[in-house]
């Protein structure tokens, strides 16, 4: 008899939500969740924010309590990693040698921080942020005496760290090679406003500056960050935040199609239909862009988890969720609905100086993305609009005093 059991590799939000959704849909086979880490599965977004200040504790960020896994008959394997996939034998072999037979295998292996091949990258005091141990190492330093901290990379992680560390009284410099912050993720007006806010709050943001090396003292601690052109920035702590790479090794070793992500179809199946890939590690066809993309977000992880659990239970609905993202810096709430990739026009509505505004992004006249700061109604309404055919033109958005919430309210009453 064929094995129905599901093995999920990776116990981040993608993996945990897959296991949970299978059970809540009534899947009755064995479910094994291979964690790798020692901690109970946790939420990552607080690791660059409240977890570093102590406002958020380890218990606050648990995805589910330990009793949940027992009650739901989900075997959670911690501290043992998947070593290889034996596709001919339909089993995963763990590092400990334990075999896990599967009917369906879900790869939710996540991503890891990209490293920079810099001289001095292994000095004491040079960190990156991905998991709980990284956050603990950072928290120990950031809750101590004031430091000179250099963040390499003005992405979400880098800017959130800069805001958190600045708020704790540290002297923070952000160094970014590109001509603007969050160049891949945000439109120019949003990126400019965010950069201005950091500068107003005392964070130095250096753009178009290449880091060429890190120098330490005789005890091996980092002391200086060297930039192209010879500029030197003193540093007691350096955090590298230059993006993430998908964890594809298991898939590649098993001859599944993979490159920058494990390639899947619209039902999130890899080149082997018994194996799916979801979350940060998956490269999937986006109906919103008409090509394969990879996204690193909680939304993508949890929506793909529900999609793959449904498919395993026989409900094969192609993945089409509207991507959305959020960030929090200095208590301001940045939310992004949709993908601004390839947009050709932006319209700013609201109070940009007072930090209550949205940037509406259009591609050939069609709304494709809305970036909002402290305008959660705009964000929510935009997500709904982007799930269908949005009826908002750039000219509408550019009307003086345009307010998406007032428009929605009027339509509700109409």
């Amino acid at each position, binding site marked *: 008899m064929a094995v129905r059991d599901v093995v999920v590799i990776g116990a981040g939000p993608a993996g945990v939500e897959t296991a949970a959704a299978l059970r809540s849909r009534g899947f009755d086979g064995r479910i094994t969740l291979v964690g790798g880490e020692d901690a109970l599965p946790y939420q990552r977004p607080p690791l660059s924010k409240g977890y570093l200040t102590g406002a958020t504790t380890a218990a606050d960020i648990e995805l589910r*309590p330990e009793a949940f896994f027992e009650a739901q008959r989900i075997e959670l394997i911690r501290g043992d990693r998947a070593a290889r996939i034996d596709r001919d034998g339909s089993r995963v072999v763990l590092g400990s040698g334990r075999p896990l037979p599967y009917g369906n295998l879900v790869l939710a292996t996540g991503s890891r921080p990209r490293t920079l091949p810099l001289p001095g990258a292994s000095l004491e005091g040079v960190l990156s942020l991905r998991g709980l141990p990284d956050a603990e190492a950072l928290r120990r330093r950031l809750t101590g005496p004031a430091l000179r901290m250099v963040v390499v990379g003005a992405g979400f992680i880098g800017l959130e760290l800069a805001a958190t560390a600045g708020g704790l009284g540290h002297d923070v410099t952000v160094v970014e090679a590109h001509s603007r912050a969050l160049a891949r993720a945000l439109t120019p007006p949003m990126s400019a406003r965010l950069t201005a806010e950091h500068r107003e709050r005392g964070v130095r943001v250096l753009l178009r500056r290449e880091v060429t090396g890190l120098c330490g003292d005789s005890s091996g601690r980092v002391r200086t960050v060297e930039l192209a052109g010879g500029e030197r920035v003193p540093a007691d702590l350096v955090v590298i935040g230059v993006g993430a790479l998908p964890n594809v090794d298991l898939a590649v070793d098993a001859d599944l199609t993979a490159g920058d992500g494990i390639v899947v179809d619209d039902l999130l199946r890899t080149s082997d239909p018994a194996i799916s890939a979801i979350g940060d590690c998956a490269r999937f066809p986006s109906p919103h862009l008409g090509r394969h993309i990879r996204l690193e977000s909680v939304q993508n992880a949890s*929506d793909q988890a529900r999609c793959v659990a449904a498919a395993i239970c026989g409900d094969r609905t192609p993945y089409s969720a509207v991507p*959305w993202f959020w960030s929090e810096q200095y208590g301001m709430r940045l939310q992004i609905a949709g993908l601004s990739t390839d947009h050709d026009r932006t319209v700013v509505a609201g109070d940009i100086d007072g930090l209550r505004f949205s940037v509406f992004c259009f591609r050939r006249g069609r709304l494709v993305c809305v970036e909002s700061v402290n305008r959660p109604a705009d964000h*929510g309404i935009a997500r709904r609009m982007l799930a269908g055919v949005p009826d908002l033109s750039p000219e509408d958005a550019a009307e003086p005093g345009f307010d998406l919430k007032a428009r*929605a309210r009027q339509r509700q009453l109409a």
Partner: protein
Amino acid sequence: MAKITYKHPDGTVTVLDVEAPNTVMRGAKINNVQGIEAQCGGSAQCGTCHVYIDENNTLPLPPMHESEDDVLYGTASPRRENSRLSCQIPVSDDIDGLVVHLPEAQV
């Protein structure tokens, strides 16, 4: 501790004893009640823990903050007079017996 009743759109009912300091959202998540997503983890960002408070409710619920009100504009199922985000309702003895109705869709 409070007894919370979650009524599903298909007519089925889940009754849970939820301990403080959880929220009505967290009570559903830790017991794997289908129909509550809470993708943002309970920070009133995403609107995927939307519930309708039972129309006969007389229990005292915390007032709605502006951010919750704003987020409710973007829920997947229509917003009604009795819409709330379940992550903004802390569990306490005061809400023992609360009945919430789950919407057709959260995302």
